[in-house]
């Protein structure tokens, strides 16, 4: 009893509980969906982008990516990818902080989200309860959804199935290298990056990794970084000059100019206050 948490040196005991938490890795698929129906219907957008998306002015996520607009509300992503978006908890990792009265344990959840067709997101959330961490992780994963560029290994027949070129991503000591593979090879990777690549919609790829891949956090982040870079790579077919379009904020200024109830009051108060000061 005295060994449990009272002493400062009780680290080994703490990990005993951690190994129990790992059991949930493959089993927890998707999380609890039942009682959360009502929240998703009552979305009141806070950001300009959110308002435009809700009004249906934005045609696809790709338009948002084109202008590098920061996505602050996860409902935006749900709007475009909603039903196709699947999530998976990669790991629940208990992390501890030492306090005067023992250890403070929190749970860190790694959640990967994706539509198996070119979009992946990775979210990491730490919380005192597992369920909260998972929920928060899913939201963060949706916010970080990235487009993945796919290409061909050889002949350009059919749909793109592999990475367009060799790309590598690094996080911590882990480097992950993705190499284009011929059709039918499948995803040749370890369990962890395989999951991420499946969500991305990549069908065939060879991988090579280095570093302490045991650290799942870094491993998963490294593959995510790698996939990020697929659209950052300049290939000859992108040599053509870009035709610049108007940013959605510019195109739809009149829609955005219509004030929502709250902002009108605030502006009036603000201007009065400022004028009074001078």
């Amino acid at each position: 009893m005295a060994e449990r948490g009272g002493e400062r040196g009780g680290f080994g005991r703490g990990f005993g509980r951690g190994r129990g938490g790992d059991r949930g890795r493959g089993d927890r698929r998707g999380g609890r969906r039942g009682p959360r129906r009502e929240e998703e219907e009552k979305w009141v957008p806070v950001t300009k982008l959110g308002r435009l998306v809700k009004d249906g002015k934005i045609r696809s996520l790709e338009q948002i990516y084109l202008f590098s607009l920061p996505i602050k509300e996860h409902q935006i992503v749900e709007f475009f990818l909603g039903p196709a978006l699947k999530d998976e908890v990669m790991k629940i990792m208990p992390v501890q902080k030492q306090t005067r009265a023992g250890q403070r344990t929190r749970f860190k959840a790694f959640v990967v989200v994706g539509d198996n067709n070119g979009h992946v997101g990775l979210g990491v959330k730490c919380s005192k309860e597992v369920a909260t961490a998972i929920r928060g992780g899913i939201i963060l994963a949706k916010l970080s959804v990235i487009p993945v560029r796919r290409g061909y290994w050889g002949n350009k027949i059919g749909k793109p199935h592999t990475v367009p070129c060799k790309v590598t991503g690094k996080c911590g000591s882990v480097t992950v290298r993705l190499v284009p593979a011929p059709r039918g090879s499948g995803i040749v990777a370890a369990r962890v990056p395989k999951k991420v690549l499946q969500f991305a919609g990549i069908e065939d790829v060879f991988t090579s990794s280095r570093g302490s891949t045991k650290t799942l956090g870094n491993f998963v982040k490294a593959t995510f970084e790698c996939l990020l870079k697929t659209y950052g790579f300049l290939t000859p077919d992108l040599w053509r000059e870009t035709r610049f379009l108007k940013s959605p904020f510019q195109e739809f200024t009149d829609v955005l100019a219509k004030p929502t109830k709250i902002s009108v009051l605030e502006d009036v108060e603000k201007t009065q206050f400022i004028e009074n000061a001078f």
Partner: protein
Amino acid sequence: MALSQKERDVQMMLAAAVHLGTKNCDFQMERYVWKRRSDGIFIINVGKTWEKLQLAARVIVAIENPQDIIVQSARPYGQRAVLKFAQYTGAQAIAGRHTPGTFTNQLQNSFCEPRLLILTDPRTDHQPIREAALGNIPTIAFCDTDSPMRHVDIAIPANNKGKHSIGCLFWLLARMVLQMRGTVTAAQPWDVMVDLFFYREPEEAKEREEEEGAVQEFAPTEYVAPPLTFAPADAQWEGAVPGQWESEPAVAIPGDLAGAPVAAEWTAAPAPMQAGGWDAIPPSIPPAAGWDSAAPIASGWEAAGPQAPTGWDPAHL
């Protein structure tokens, strides 16, 4: 010989010392520097300043909704200029401290997503620059010779240390914007003075009020009488309040009006208010629900009233 618009503007800028930089020069500002003076100060090429002002004005005019533009100044010298600029161009002004997260934290009350940001000094206003970079917001800034240019999209080389200089620049920029929009033309020149954009020291403001105060000294004593007579009849003025209103001015008029920039500013701004600032408040409150709701506000003012002038005096004497 008649001077062109540009030449007249350049003359004004030289008079306002816009061309005087600092003893250091950032390498990216070298292209705007004309020469280094014998005492080490870099001189900015004012012609280039004018060109950059034009460019900035074009960008400002290109924003369809002027409310999406935010003009900002943390430093006191730029605050008045920024407010007047916003007033005449329809932009939004932020004077004083920029709360971190106003452009990035969507949960904040003061969250806004501007289309354009105009700053007086990239060094003191570095926080808004950083946030604008995160939110894809183009930034225009008045840069001195030693200002960091990171994340500044349009740099207007100028002296951002002197109050005349900042005022002059904002005035010019505002006028250019109005000219490009067509509000101001050669036939209808802009009738607003540059002086309106200059920063006024509190002592200077106090002196101005003293002059205006001398005129108004008589007015409050007259105005004291009416509330007393109206008290039982008029529904708006409850018994307690007029008595309190009356006691303050009677006790402390000369000192108050002389040393109360707050009250004085009330006189300066709204034209119809002839008496002291005390009367400026009630007319705006009654239209609302009733005196009950307004009474706490009025009493708050009273509590603040006698204290505010005396509080200001030691600070400014």
